[in-house]
């Protein structure tokens, strides 16, 4: 037994030193990521929908689409639809891809235009509008017809403490009032009905979800999957670890205990779009949805930058020397141990003959 453990340990250590052949899906020739901006999700808890949109768009652009097709917010609304839930703030990439496959897509520009009508009228951000809709969706369908206006006004007042600026919610009253005739589920999906009645069928590979119950397996499996698919992976992990690499946010499932994610983990989902060795250890290129600048969570990290002026990539750029207004950040290289200790799910697109798990 001891010999076997020793062999496994040696094999693992050999893997850590020998594998991790470089992959970079952002800088590769004709990369779909050239057509997909670095997103910023602001205060919306829909990282899963951003991940789903990027997985699908990557595949569709590879197949010949000229640009991105999926609006992440549309994905989040469809997720809420199939899960029959009245909020969009938590979800999974796997089910969002499934939802989009089942219910079809509203083209990016159409959805964006419809959403902008709401945000313009309300003089509020997408996050603020969606926050209000979520609050209304819980209760509005149960409110008596003659109390709808008062209830909306009361909800707006409660919601306003979370909004800065000068929202003009009264301009949205006709739309909000009309939502009261819908079920709570329909309120979310019905937001943009006029332009999204006819949805387009999405033809992409099936989503897969895997979860490994040993820390050591995570780097190996991410590495293997990137080599096999040559396509991005959506990783569920504790975002707290981006600020503190020593953070260990996941207790793995055992025979007697379930998987446990620590309360201060800050559950998040981002794209893994590359790998390479730095200082002898495998690092994964994480494309986050926190904007295109040098985020504070990436201080002292090596990143992949792109020049605004020339569009040229600069690898191993760093905050202290390259945060100069010219370089935007496409992604940063994260130590494999971060995912070993903090990953709790991985989604990708793959048509497979045999089950993944």
């Amino acid at each position, binding site marked *: 037994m001891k010999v076997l453990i020793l062999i496994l340990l040696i094999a693992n250590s050999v893997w850590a030193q020998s594998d991790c052949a470089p992959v970079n899906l952002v800088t590769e020739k004709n990369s779909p990521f050239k057509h997909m901006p*670095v997103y910023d999700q602001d*205060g919306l*808890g829909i990282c899963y929908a951003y991940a789903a949109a990027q997985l699908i768009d990557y595949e569709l652009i590879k197949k010949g689409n000229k640009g991105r097709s999926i609006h992440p917010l549309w994905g989040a609304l469809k997720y809420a639809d199939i899960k029959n839930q009245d909020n969009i703030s938590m979800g999974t990439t796997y089910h969002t891809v499934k939802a989009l496959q089942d219910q079809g897509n509203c083209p990016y520009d159409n959805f964006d235009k419809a959403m902008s009508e709401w945000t313009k009228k309300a003089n509020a951000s997408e996050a603020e509008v969606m926050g209000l809709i979520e609050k209304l969706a819980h209760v509005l369908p149960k409110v008596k017809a003659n109390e709808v206006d008062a209830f909306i006004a009361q909800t707006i007042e409660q919601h306003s403490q979370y909004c800065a600026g000068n929202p003009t919610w009264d301009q949205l009253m006709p739309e909000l009032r009309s939502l009261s005739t819908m079920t709570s589920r329909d309120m979310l999906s019905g937001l943009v009905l006029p332009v999204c009645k006819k949805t387009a069928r999405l033809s992409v590979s099936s989503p897969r979800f895997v979860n490994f119950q040993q820390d050591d397996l995570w780097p190996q499996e991410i590495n293997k999957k990137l080599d096999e698919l040559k396509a991005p992976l959506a990783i569920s992990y504790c975002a707290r670890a981006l600020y503190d690499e020593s953070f260990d946010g996941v207790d793995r499932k055992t025979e007697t205990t379930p998987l446990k994610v620590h309360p201060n983990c800050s559950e998040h989902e981002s794209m893994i779009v590359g790998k390479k060795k730095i200082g002898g250890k495998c690092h994964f290129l994480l494309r986050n949805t926190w*904007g295109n600048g040098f985020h504070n969570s990436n201080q002292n990290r090596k990143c992949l930058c792109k020049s605004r002026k020339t569009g040229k990539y600069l690898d191993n750029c760093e905050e202290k020397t390259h945060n100069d207004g010219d370089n935007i950040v496409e992604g940063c290289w994260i130590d494999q141990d971060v995912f070993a200790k903090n990953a709790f799910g991985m989604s990708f697109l793959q048509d497979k003959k045999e089950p993944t798990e």
Partner: protein
Amino acid sequence: MNVILLSFSLFVSLLSNVSLAANCENFKGYELKEKLCWDQTIRGWITARCLDKNQKCQAKDFFLTKTDAVPLSEMKGGHNPAAMICHHLKLEVLILKDSQNNEQSFCRFKDQSLVDANSVERNVK
């Protein structure tokens, strides 16, 4: 002497305009189109007029003192922590796009001046 001083101030003014032009970009939101310039002192984008020392600008003044830390509970659910700090400080958050459609969070102050949310987060103790 006056001519020399005039020429010198003209030269300095031109130089500052050139440097502004070199580091500015138009960012777009749903309705808003804002010229933002790179400010190396805060390592972030800021409303163009804020670089003029003679102009009042709340976004610039924000960096005169450090801001108190934001409770850890603010960081949850994968939200952008930099944007959440703006929300916590009761500042409006705008997502603007650069010329390549990349998105970035900005905090908007009451005088309508904007600044990079990443810079705001860096200014938190």
